[in-house]
């Protein structure tokens, strides 16, 4: 019977371990939008991306719809080009949509805010690989302070 009790204890040990792993996976980790299910890519050029990083979220009205997957410099003038991977659940953005780089909270991390544009007969929908042209760059605190000091000096 000794051996049976041992086996029972080891069995319970393994079960507890697996349950703990499930708890970590389901309760503590994210099941993120961009990594499962179908996605498509959108691109946007900015003047300055500030502190945006790969894997930063793309949000519509605060809801995460995708993630930044690649940041490169593009074109003759080396403009930052951001590749966003958006979930196929949200594939009805018009090409009058705009993106801006926002900061969550005063010191928080930066993310891309996507504002859906109007829809009428003249605009087309964004497809895989399309560019969003209406972009607003990140707010760089140093630039703001510089502008403020400059405008103070003019008075």
């Amino acid at each position, binding site marked *: 019977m000794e*051996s049976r009790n*041992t*086996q029972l*204890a*080891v069995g*319970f*040990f*393994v079960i*507890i*371990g697996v349950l*703990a*792993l499930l*708890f*970590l*996976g389901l*309760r*503590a*980790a*994210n*099941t*993120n939008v961009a990594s499962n299910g179908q996605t498509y890519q959108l691109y946007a050029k900015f003047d300055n991306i500030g502190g945006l990083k790969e894997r930063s*979220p793309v949000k519509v009205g605060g809801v*995460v719809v995708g993630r930044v997957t690649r940041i490169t410099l593009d074109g003759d003038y080396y403009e930052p080009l951001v590749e966003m991977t958006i979930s196929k659940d949200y594939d009805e953005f018009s090409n009058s949509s705009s993106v801006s780089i926002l900061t969550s909270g005063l*010191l928080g991390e930066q993310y891309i805010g996507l504002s859906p544009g109007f829809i009428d007969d003249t605009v087309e929908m964004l497809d895989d690989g399309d560019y969003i042209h209406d972009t607003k760059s990140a707010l760089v605190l140093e630039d703001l302070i510089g502008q403020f000091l400059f405008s103070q000096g003019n008075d």
Partner: protein
Amino acid sequence: MLDRVASLGKTILDSIAGAGQAMVMLLRALIGKPQLRKSWPLLMQQMYSVGVLSLVIIIVSGLFIGMVLGLQGYTILVDFGAEQSLGPMVALSLLRELGPVVTALLFAGRAGSALTAEIGLMKATEQLSSLEMMAVDPLRRVISPRFWAGFYSMPLLAIIFSAVGIYGGYLVGVRWLGVDEGAFWSVMQSNVEWGQDILNGIIKSLVFAFTVTWIALHKGFHCTPTSVGISRATTSTVVTASLAVLGLDFVLTALMFG
């Protein structure tokens, strides 16, 4: 002068010989025809004494470390009005570092020393030689099940440690100090990633499991078969294993998160 150089050379030669012995022992214990029917009960027995009996210390220390993290994190974060970040702070520090490392240190102290002492005593009382006399390979019969038991048990223990620690942080942060429950879990979920954090933590604890168990078995199997020798070997197991874990942890962290 020459004596000093000679003693330095002897130390180096000894340590290389020790590493070689350990490698040969591991290879001979692990390589060979698996005999599931014979080794399964042995593995169960060792999983019980190495894994199940370590559960209490792992759960209790996990709970307390999680609670301390919650308390310390809260008093610092609340100054910046960022107490919502308590969840990811507790979860990330447990999953990435404290879970695997503290489990490995506790495991070295609780199970590693026991393994060394047990095998050392088997050697001192010539049980290992008796096994050989009966044509039973002590490496396959004694070392191999203990190695696999440690290798399988420690990742499980580390996962349990992290889960219990997160619960401890939740108890202190949410239940006691009044961090918003929704924010605690949702900010944690948006910051913790399955592959980057949880999987890397498990890989870490697998590496630590391999190292600690291997060191413990080697120290026991190659100890001087006297009471002084066994006590030295046991001490040396805990010290070497702890140092190896901490050093490896830095390397692994640099590779994974650097």
